[in-house]
């Protein structure tokens, strides 16, 4: 149902306002007004949701048309970036004309994003502003947090402004579980347990996102086991001693320096202090494990194997 109410200041047709209101507009794959509103364009497909909005236009002599939008969208299920999600809530109050600007900080909430890297309970407070000259709007994330790898990821005061490169944003990681993070990378024969916290300074540049001198540290002790199938590692022969030490290294200190380049190159320099109790009475061992990989290829391969398994689940469910 759509209702429009218009009023006019007495006889003066040059002054007045109109409000178009909708209560519970049904949304689905074909009717997806949220995709029109969201700029930059998000690969967002809605399966089922409802939208309540009110659009108010005001005009008066000597002033440009003013257009305000207030919307409250709830989407039960959909896919974003080809990853299924559930429980999306979007609440925005925006000036659209004469220039795009958030009236109050908008809210985006998501219960579950089931991509290769699962994200839960995402809450984001955003502000849109349109730079003069009409390029893409500037998106400011005032506060955002989500559950990730059994811990929390937090952002504050992050600005994404395509027009003005080199904007920065600090990502805080709290109490993340190392085991699933390492397992994702499928490094042959490597398991790491323990929890870490730290910070990833993000920088947006015309080439894309980069992380410069990200750092995480252990909270409490943990364990690293590394026995690759082949006898040598790529690039560094594994001495017998190192192989034995890495059978089961209990660590008390772990720091990882993280750097990421827009082309996907992710380097993680892991430094670890611990001992293998079964070796020389637990002599102290310092391990420097430098890893390099392409994160974009990892995500693609996870997407591939993730979609393979979800595709498989779907076919199996059909035949059951």
């Amino acid at each position: 149902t759509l209702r429009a109410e218009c009023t006019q200041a007495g006889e003066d047709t040059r002054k007045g306002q109109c409000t178009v209101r909708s209560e519970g507009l049904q949304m689905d794959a074909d009717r997806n007004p949220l995709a029109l509103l969201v700029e930059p364009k998000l690969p967002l497909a809605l399966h089922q949701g409802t939208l309540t909005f009110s659009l108010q236009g005001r005009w008066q002599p000597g002033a440009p048309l003013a257009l305000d939008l207030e919307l409250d969208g709830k989407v039960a299920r959909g896919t974003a970036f080809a990853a299924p999600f559930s429980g999306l809530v979007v609440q925005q109050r925006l000036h659209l004309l004469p220039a795009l600007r958030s009236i109050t900080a908008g809210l985006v909430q998501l219960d579950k994003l089931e991509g290769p890297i699962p994200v839960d309970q995402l809450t984001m407070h955003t502000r849109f502003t349109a730079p003069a000259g009409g390029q893409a709007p500037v998106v400011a994330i005032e506060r955002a947090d989500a559950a990730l790898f059994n811990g929390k990821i937090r952002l504050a005061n992050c600005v994404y402004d395509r027009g003005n490169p080199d904007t920065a944003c600090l990502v805080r990681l709290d109490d993340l579980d190392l085991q699933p993070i390492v397992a994702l990378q499928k490094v042959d024969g490597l398991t790491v347990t323990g929890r870490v916290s730290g910070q990833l300074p993000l920088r947006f540049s015309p080439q894309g996102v980069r992380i410069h001198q990200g750092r995480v540290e252990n909270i409490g002790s943990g364990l690293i086991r590394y026995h690759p199938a082949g006898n040598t590692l790529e690039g560094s022969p594994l001495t017998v001693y190192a192989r034995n030490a890495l059978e089961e290294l209990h660590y008390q200190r772990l720091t990882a320096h993280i750097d990421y380049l827009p082309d996907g190159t992710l380097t993680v320099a892991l430094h670890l202090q611990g001992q293998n109790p079964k070796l020389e009475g637990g002599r102290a061992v310092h391990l420097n494990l430098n890893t390099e990989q392409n994160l974009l290829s990892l995500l693609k391969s996870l997407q591939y194997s993730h979609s393979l398994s979800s595709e498989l689940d779907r076919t199996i469910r059909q035949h059951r």
Partner: protein
Amino acid sequence: CSPTVTVAPPDKPITINLNVKIEHEIRVKVEKELESVINPESGLF
């Protein structure tokens, strides 16, 4: 009783340096090629 000898762990820590380059592109290609082997039609699965 036989004397028990406790070996105090030598104090100097052992340092191990390892470099690992993880190739994800190859894994994706191998997984794709394996699909035709690990498949009922191949007669091997």
